[in-house]
């Protein structure tokens, strides 16, 4: 589970690159997410646009990584594919995250 990172003027966008976020990949996801947001400020947007399969372990990992954020940093989600959006809806976790239909892009800055 590789993650790409783009720092914009508005947020740090952390994007998945794998098609699956499942039990086999959650430990790597958590480790890489932790590194990606260690010095983040303000908003972190997790771009899940590459993920077309999310199981309960993957969902639990997304909930859990909120606790890895520096104090005061907020996690938002973006670009959920239909199967992923459905898991959020079925579990009602769509009610606890701000979810953007597409990544709200601002001007990128060096990171």
């Amino acid at each position: 589970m590789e993650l790409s990172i783009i720092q914009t003027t508005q947020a740090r966008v952390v994007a998945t690159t794998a098609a699956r976020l499942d039990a086999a990949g959650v430990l790597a996801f958590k480790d890489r997410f932790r590194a990606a947001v260690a010095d983040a400020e303000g908003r972190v947007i997790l771009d899940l646009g590459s993920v077309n399969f999310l199981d309960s372990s993957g969902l639990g990992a997304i909930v859990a990584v909120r606790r890895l954020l520096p104090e005061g940093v907020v996690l938002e989600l973006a670009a959920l594919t239909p199967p992923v959006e459905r898991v959020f809806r079925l579990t009602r976790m769509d009610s606890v995250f701000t979810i953007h239909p597409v990544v709200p892009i601002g001007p990128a800055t060096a990171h």
Partner: protein
Amino acid sequence: MLLAHEKFLADPLAVRAALVRIEGGPLAVLAPAQRETALLVMAEVLNNVAEHAYGGGHGPVSASLWLCHGQLCGRVLDKGVVPPVFTRGNRYDPATLPEGGFGLGLIRVLTERLVQRRRLGCNVLDFRLAGHNAQDTGDSFLIRHN
């Protein structure tokens, strides 16, 4: 009509590999929503076997999916310890941000028949997927505050 039959040693990577084989094989002929439901339920059941029945170790598991009168049915067999019961409890309040417990709830909400039994030293789980109209409310997950 049998759609898929897989035998492997349960661990998360083997579960992923089995699901990829199933997805790219016979299930490719199903409607996307039905295929996604089948794969998600099978993933949750198999991960439950790996995590609970075998306690994170390796053990044999057999997984089958078939069509019966237009509905998708499945059976999973393992030789582990008796896993958690799927059909009761496990509700939560989303506002408390639980980090686990989603799997059993997903299985429950996406199936309309779920039978667990112990037979000849094996755990046997039979399920039938819920119809589309019954799937997407998510109500069984909620703790209601009245």
